[in-house]
């Protein structure tokens, strides 16, 4: 079972993702801030991180840079309400990009795709 870390500052999103992705068979852990995420990353093992770009007073892209630097092999899927960050070059460091939507299928597909890609490596 793949273990996911969902990093989002909105508790409702964290709850929604936990339930939906949990039903898909993933073991989902959540973090409400970059600091909390870093802490969890230091202490636990994950297979993929689902990362919101706009965290309250922090930037998901900064966290992404840190993750890529420290944990080169850990895939990150960016999840944002905005599509404009796709063209921000620091966003390209991620393995996937999903624009938040009420239909979670795209998110689920992207997670599957990125995990499959990781397995093939």
């Amino acid at each position, binding site marked *: 079972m793949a273990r996911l870390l969902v990093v989002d500052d909105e508790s409702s999103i964290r709850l929604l993702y936990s339930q939906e992705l949990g039903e898909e068979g993933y073991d989902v852990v959540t973090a409400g801030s970059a600091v909390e995420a870093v802490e969890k990353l230091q202490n636990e093992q994950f297979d993929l991180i689902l990362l919101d770009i706009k965290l309250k007073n922090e930037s998901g892209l900064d966290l992404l840079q840190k993750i890529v630097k420290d944990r080169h092999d850990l895939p990150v899927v960016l999840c944002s309400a905005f599509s404009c960050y*796709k063209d*921000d070059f620091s966003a*390209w460091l991620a393995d996937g990009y999903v624009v938040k939507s009420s239909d979670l299928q795209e998110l689920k597909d992207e997670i599957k795709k990125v995990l499959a890609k990781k397995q093939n*490596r």
Partner: protein
Amino acid sequence: MKAVIMAGGFGTRIQPLTCNMPKPMIPLINRPIMLHIVELLKKYEITDLVMLLYHQPSVIKNFFRDGSDFGVKITYVTPLEDMGTAGAVKCAEKYIDERFLVISGDLLTDFNLKKVMDFHSDNKALATITLTSVKDPLQFGVVITDKERRIIQFLEKPGWGEVISDTINTGIYVFEPEIFNFIPANENFDFSQDLFPMLLEKKEQLFGYPIKGYWRDVGNTDSYREAHHDIFRGRINVKIDEPKQDVVGRDLRLGTDVRLDESALLDGTVVVGDNSQIFGSSQIKDSVIGRNCTIEPGVKLSRCVIWDNVYLKKGAKIVDSVICNNVSVGQGVVIEEGGIIADDTSIGEEAYIKRDVKVWPRKLIEAGATVTDNMIWGEKWKKSLFEGAIIKGLTNVELTPEFVAKLGCAYGTSLPKGSFVLAARDAFLASRMLKRSFLGGILSAGVNVRDLKMMPLPIVRYKLKTFGEVGGVHFRQSQEDPALTEIVFLDGDGLDFSSSMAKNVERIFFKENFRRAHHKEPGGITELPQVIDFYREGFARGVNRDLLKKQNSKIVIDFNHSPAGQLLPPIMNDLGIEVIALNAYVDEERGIKNADERPQSLSQLSKIVTSLEARAGFWLDPTVEGVIVVDETGKVYTAEETLPLMVALFLRSGQKGTFAVPVSAPSVVEIMASEKGCAVIRTKNSERAMIEASLASEVIMAGSMDGRFAFPKFQTGFDGMFTVVKTVELLATSGVPMSVIYGEIPHRTFLQSRITCAWEMKGGIMRKMSEDSLDCEATFIDGIKVHFGEDWVLVLPDQYQPFVHVVAEGKDPKVVHRLLAEYQKKVEKWKKELQ
């Protein structure tokens, strides 16, 4: 009465039928077109002929000679330059002192010429133009006459809006000898453009005589085929040399010594020339077969014109096409309607020639190839477009803008609608031209393009690692030959196209099964200006910045005018490396250096490295994937020396991990790696195989045998720019000069050679090699590698070229030389046995 036959044209519009013969000599039912004209003139008792020749006159002269064999008397006139139609006739003035008829040598007609001559005589005309009515008068000269048949107006090749009559000039004229007074000597003068308008203006006796009957200008290949159809349908009767057979219900004409099996199914009009053979159950309908042809069982011909010395193998299926002299058509070949296969062409088995394709003379079409476009200058039509992940071809000859546009369309069709691809090119104008055409094709399939413009391939690969694009293409000039352009296809991960992806694009291309976007939905082009910053960021993360900054190394790089010359120096300066950049400016008009210019460049680089006391020198290849390394003493490393050197640098700097190297790499790599507790993975020789191997997390470097290296911590693709900086970093870590590290590598002799070998023999050679290796310890990763203790020899067929490689390595130089020679001999012997 005399006749002048105009037979001087170049026949440009009817190429490639006229590539090896003048147009009047093209066979129509196994006889030159002009012979049908001679027969027509004879029928009306015109036997004193003047032939006006210009293009390839000897071919016509050799056939007709003095005309006695054909019951006529022929005088030849060959103007020294193009004099126009009337001007050429003027050159024959001294042979003509009576009323005469002018006719083109490339007409097919059964007009009653006597009626024309009688009309001319009755009206006491100076000139009479024979007129006829046609459905489509646009391509001819329209003529208007009054009630007395006097010509009142000419309209040369009118538009539909201008058409006021369907009566056209047939190119058959009757003149009084006084006409020469109106034609200036030694001047280009045309009947329609100059003479007739002049006569009209001067109110001379110029008449037009409309006549009924069959008339066709055999001016292009469509008209040539249609002329045959008309003969098959009985619309015109022409003389056929081959005698008619007494067969009810069929019009069968057979020449002498024709062999025709009883099981052959013949239908409609079938003409078979002397000494031709038709075997077994061939099906032939409304077709002409020339002399000395062989048709094997199961061949199907419908409405075909086959010239002389043609060999059609079993099961070939040809519809409404022309096969010229000395053509061989392989088993199971299909030629669709409108095909023209010119002289001396060979078509391999199961090839597919699409509708209306014209193949120019002396071409070789590989077995299984699908030819969709006219094949004019290139020598060969390949079965597959791709060589691995690359499509390469002669710029503007094989890879033309229209060809690559179609290719772009096929590539776009293979991708999801609305998806994005990356596109980039090297610094050359040809690459830019072709890339632009290609992008048009992609957009037409509803796929978007992110255009990186001039950008090295490693950066394209690097961006593709991220999300956003489903694939990429890179256009570049070939290093082997500056006349070639290469298109590198990459998948969504920046890896080379897999063979299944390549096959998918090929299948769409050959079947022309394109997805055309709705007019509101074509793809768009955008740019990604931040790509370089993204690459630079990743690059800096991939090396030990602090160490590099501390070391302050000085190195020399020859950038070969590649775009890397603008990108790498700032990155290296940021890392504290002093770069002496050579040929760092981009020059779009400058081609890649020839292979023979390279030693001089390397020698210069070597001198500069030593004189500046640099830590190392690098010659970056124009694709920015590979490097040639020069050490601090000026030694230039060969590609097979560079791979062990890079491994040694890693080991000396204390890094642990696995190295991915091709099967042909020296085994000294394994010896060194195992001493330091590291491992080596052997891969196939293909670029994709090496890059795929480097995806494994334990791999720290993948190295090819041609100076290309990938460092998976940064990116899995080969990257010359990163190789340069990584080498400097490894040198800094080890703290020892490069020459010293190279000196520590265990010395082994490594030899390689290649032997020419026809494609069809490669399989046989490998079978024999495998039989020969039965009792030896052998590995079969790619080719066959036989081990003799620490020594080994590898026999490896080249994937894309007609070669077999023989590689040997060992401790004792004598043994290695013996091994290489022994296996070279074996391959040569097997080649002879397989012939």
